């Protein structure tokens, strides 16, 4: 069944399926129903970390050196524990600054340095090529193995096959085409490849399930579970060394690999791509932070069992342990499982190749080729039209270039190595970025020069201690380079530099390269000064958590540009549609209409720079914006001003703002209180003048009549009596006035004596009527009382209640129609309170005076009689009392004749409420 064409067909079919998934993922993203925007997809896409190296190589390594395949997965677990300090920060920065690659990230951090971006790109391409070649090797080896089915023949001497007959060559070409179709379908302003992410997540599932299937088959199919397998394996001569960790040097290597993998999970371009650049939502990290390590754990459970199973199966044979995942099911003639295992390996390889080449091609395009092209003035690139096509062509070209070079590495150098060794070579290269990245995240002092020197030294040391020896081992440089050192200089032996021979090659290389890298970075950073732009970027990166989202204000473009220039610039790189959408979004966010903007302000310049950075990288974007901006970047002083707004200052100013807001509120309150005091003071003055006027009127008449009586001794007796009557009446009036004044003052001051209790209103009203009966009779009043026989009890002061009714009645008597005086009292129960109405048939209250008559000394109808008929204090007293009871008093409107005063008194609580309420 497993003929060549079947394998080919299935492989093609699988790749087509992947492409379909990616296409569907992109389509969903365009429709706004993103599949990739999901923490599980995100976590699975990070599992692109597990490549052929994991899939085939781990078993190979486990078969030769036991458990030391594990640090490669324990390191990332440790980094993910610390996600908040490193990964979370990187993701936030990447999003804010529209970083497009790891080169872009480092270049941005150190002042948007084009040079640094280029250097990182070169290191990444050279360093990752062996890793890609590893995948090509794995695919072509596994394919060739499968072709021999059911014979297990190790493919050998692949280097001698002419290139047109070399499977790996076609694998490389196919993957290049596939990646080009996958990753460069359009230039996106934010470098998201949602379709690709979904496809990678799918591949992660396939490789996991395939690997677990083989593992389960070995453990439970061939053996009777783990216990049985491990018991059987004790027969192996190497068993003891596989399940323990042996010597001190193994432990040294263990630590080295842990450190390398910790660096790799952050610094490998493809990991940076999936973790930071493709991240659609920071919160996905919350799940990925434990899902991804869990994935690593699960995929590693069966590594040792498969290795042991393979060793038991092929003991003495020449089967390469790197192929156990495939050869064990082959040996057992499990056709389907074999094919599935192959597809799993293909998944692992294609996933890595696709993401790595997309990441590298973005870097080559944005950080290597474009900056050079943009600087070549004779190309006049600045004036050319649509550059989106050019960008795409560069990326496609670089994908092809990277894969063909990787193929070259595989064919001419890498073939003699085990998978894991090649992978570690790449890890060591990627680790060179770690000081610049981690240092740049945590330490503001790192300078561009420091990063440049550190990277250069580290990379050189990597070439010298790892890459060149690998060339020597492959016969491209004389082998004496390793044995005797270059030109016989013993001290410079690449595997034992300066006589340091105690370490394994990898630890040795890591020690020296990190020594010069970190040493160069820190030393030179301390010795050099940062430019303004570097300081700004350093602050933006290190304090990214502390800064508000809106950091447009920290833009350092001071010059101006016309909006049409900016627009044209963006259109050339990202196309009209995307440019329109982006600027529309900006306009909607800021609320300014860009159509009216002719001169772009610094905020808009900043926005445009970030937009462009998303397509061509920070360094190039800066150059491009610089080409259309007239004027200078911010002066040093201005930059310092911006910089000094460190978080403390911002926080301090926040606190100041808060304080001043509180002060404002307090002073507003003070002002209001002052206004009220003034008002009260004015009222008091008014009151005093009114009172003195009211008191003087009766006093004046008393005094003048007394004087007449005193002076004129011969007045007739009748006149005397008349005058004396006036004097008595005025004295009474004066007494009443003073009493009421005192009463009102007491009420207003709250010093009145109250005896609030539950009383029967019927009885009180009858008593009040009785008290005024003489007054009523005197004026021949007709009184209608409408009093229900049963009334709920009310809560009030008995005497004050009577006082209110008496006041109202006497008021009514005074204003009644003289010819036919009549007063009505109506008492009614409402749901909330008892309602008492006193109505007369006098002239009534003029419209608009309904409120005023309850004020002190206000009388509704002063003009009606020359002499006031009342003191003007009765109603204010009534109001004070009623309001004290919790009721209300008012004048009923819509009265055609007379005035109707109504007041309410609340019921006693016990009569209608639940006790204890």
């Amino acid at each position: 069944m497993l003929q060549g064409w079947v394998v080919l067909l299935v492989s093609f079919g699988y790749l087509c399926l992947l492409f379909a998934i990616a296409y569907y993922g992109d389509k969903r993203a365009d429709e706004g129903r993103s599949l990739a925007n999901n923490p599980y997809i995100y976590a699975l896409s990070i599992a692109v970390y597990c490549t052929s190296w994991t899939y085939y190589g781990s078993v190979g390594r486990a078969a030769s050196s036991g458990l030391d395949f594990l640090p490669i997965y324990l390191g990332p677990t440790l980094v993910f524990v610390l996600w908040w300090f490193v990964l979370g920060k990187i993701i936030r920065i990447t999003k804010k600054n529209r970083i497009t690659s790891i080169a872009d990230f480092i270049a941005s951090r150190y002042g948007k340095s084009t040079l640094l971006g280029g250097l990182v790109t070169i290191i990444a391409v050279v360093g990752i090529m062996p890793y890609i070649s590893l995948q090509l090797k794995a695919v072509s080896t596994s394919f060739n193995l499968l072709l021999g089915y059911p014979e297990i023949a190790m493919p050998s001497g692949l280097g001698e096959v002419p290139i047109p007959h070399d499977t790996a060559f076609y694998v490389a070409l196919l993957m290049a085409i596939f990646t080009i179709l996958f990753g460069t379908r359009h230039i996106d302003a934010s470098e998201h490849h949602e379709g690709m992410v979904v496809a990678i997540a799918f591949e992660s599932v396939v490789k996991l399930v395939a690997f677990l299937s083989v593992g389960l088959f070995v453990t439970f199919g061939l053996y009777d579970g783990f216990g049985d397998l491990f018991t059987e394996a004790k027969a192996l001569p190497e068993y003891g060394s596989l399940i323990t960790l042996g010597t001190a040097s193994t432990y040294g290597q263990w630590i080295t690999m842990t450190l390398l993998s910790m660096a790799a999970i952050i610094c490998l371009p493809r990991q940076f791509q999936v973790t930071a650049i493709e991240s659609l939502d920071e919160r996905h990290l919350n799940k990925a932070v434990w899902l991804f390590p869990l994935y690593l754990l699960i995929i590693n459970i069966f590594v040792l069992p498969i290795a042991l199973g393979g060793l038991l199966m092929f003991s003495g044979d020449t089967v390469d342990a790197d192929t156990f995942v495939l050869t064990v099911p082959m040996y057992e003639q499990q056709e389907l499982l074999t094919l599935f295992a192959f597809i799993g390996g293909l998944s692992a390889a294609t996933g890595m190749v696709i993401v790595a080449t997309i990441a590298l091609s973005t870097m080559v395009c944005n950080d290597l080729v474009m900056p050079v092209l943009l600087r070549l003035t004779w190309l006049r690139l600045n004036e050319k039209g649509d550059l989106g096509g050019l960008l795409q062509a560069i990326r496609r070209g670089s994908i092809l270039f990277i894969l063909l070079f990787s193929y070259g590495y595989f064919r001419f150098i890498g073939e003699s190595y085990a998978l894991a060794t090649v992978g570690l070579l790449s890890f060591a290269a990627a680790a060179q970025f770690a000081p610049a990245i981690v240092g740049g995240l945590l330490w503001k002092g790192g300078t561009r020069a420091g990063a440049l020197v550190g990277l250069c030294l580290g990379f050189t040391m990597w070439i010298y201690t790892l890459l060149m020896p690998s060339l020597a081992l492959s016969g491209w440089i004389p082998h004496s380079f390793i044995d005797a050192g270059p030109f016989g200089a013993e001290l410079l032996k690449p595997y034992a530099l300066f006589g340091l021979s105690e370490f394994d090659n990898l630890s040795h290389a890591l020690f020296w390269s990190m020594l010069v890298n970190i040493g160069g970075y820190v030393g030179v950073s301390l010795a050099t000064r940062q430019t303004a732009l570097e300081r700004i970027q350093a602050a933006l990166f290190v304090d990214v958590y502390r800064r508000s989202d809106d950091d447009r204000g920290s833009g350092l473009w001071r010059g101006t540009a016309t909006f049409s220039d900016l627009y044209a610039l963006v259109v050339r790189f990202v196309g009209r549609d995307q440019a329109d959408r982006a600027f529309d979004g900006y306009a909607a966010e800021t609320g300014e209409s860009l159509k009216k903007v002719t001169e772009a302000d610094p905020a808009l310049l900043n926005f445009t720079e970030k937009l462009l950075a998303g397509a061509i990288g920070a360094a190039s974007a800066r150059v491009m914006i610089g080409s259309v901006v007239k004027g200078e970047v911010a002066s040093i002083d201005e930059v310092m001003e911006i910089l000094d707004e460190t978080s403390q200052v911002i926080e301090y100013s926040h606190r100041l703002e808060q304080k001043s807001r509180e002060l404002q509120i307090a002073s507003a309150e003070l002002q209001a209180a002052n206004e009220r005091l003034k008002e009260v003071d004015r009222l008091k003055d008014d009151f005093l003048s009114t009172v003195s006027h009211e008191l003087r009127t009766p006093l004046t008449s008393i005094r003048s009549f007394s004087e007449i009586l005193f002076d004129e001794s011969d007045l007739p007796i009748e006149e005397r009596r008349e005058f004396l009557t006036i004097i008595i009446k005025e004295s009474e009036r004066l007494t009443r006035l003073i009493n009421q004044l005192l009463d009102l003052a007491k009420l207003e001051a709250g010093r009145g004596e109250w005896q609030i209790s539950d009383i029967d209103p019927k009885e009180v009203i009858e008593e009040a009527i009785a008290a005024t009966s003489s007054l009523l009779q005197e004026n021949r009043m007709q009184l209608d009382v409408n009093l229900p026989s049963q009334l709920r009890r009310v809560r009030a002061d008995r005497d004050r209640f009577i006082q209110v009714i008496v006041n109202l009645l006497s008021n009514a008597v005074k204003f009644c129609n003289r010819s036919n005086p009549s007063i009505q009292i109506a008492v009614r129960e409402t749901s909330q309170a008892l309602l008492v109405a006193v109505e007369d048939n006098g002239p009534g209250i003029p419209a608009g005076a309904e409120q005023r008559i309850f004020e002190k000394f206000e009388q509704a109808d002063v003009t009606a009689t020359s002499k006031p008929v009342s003191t003007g204090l009765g109603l204010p007293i009534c109001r004070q009392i009623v309001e004290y009871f919790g009721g209300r008093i008012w004048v009923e409107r819509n009265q055609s004749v007379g005035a109707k005063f109504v007041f309410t008194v609340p019921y006693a609580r016990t009569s209608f409420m639940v006790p204890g309420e």
Partner: protein
Amino acid sequence: MNQRRPVSESLLALFALGVLLFNPPMLLLFGVDATLFGFPALYLYIFASWALLIALVAMIVNRRGRSPGMRPRIGRTRDG
């Protein structure tokens, strides 16, 4: 609520635990030719402590996810 330890502290402590668990002194302790429940001791030890570390991280992150410590962020920055 306010008395809750910052997540970053817990994570740092976990990291230290991980470094301890996955490095020589502890590995040497279990790196003996013995079997536990049918598994080689070191193999079982590494996977068990690994699983423990993952579970602890998941626990801390989940707890943090429920607390209002972190502002929700705008998810997508995509313009296209």
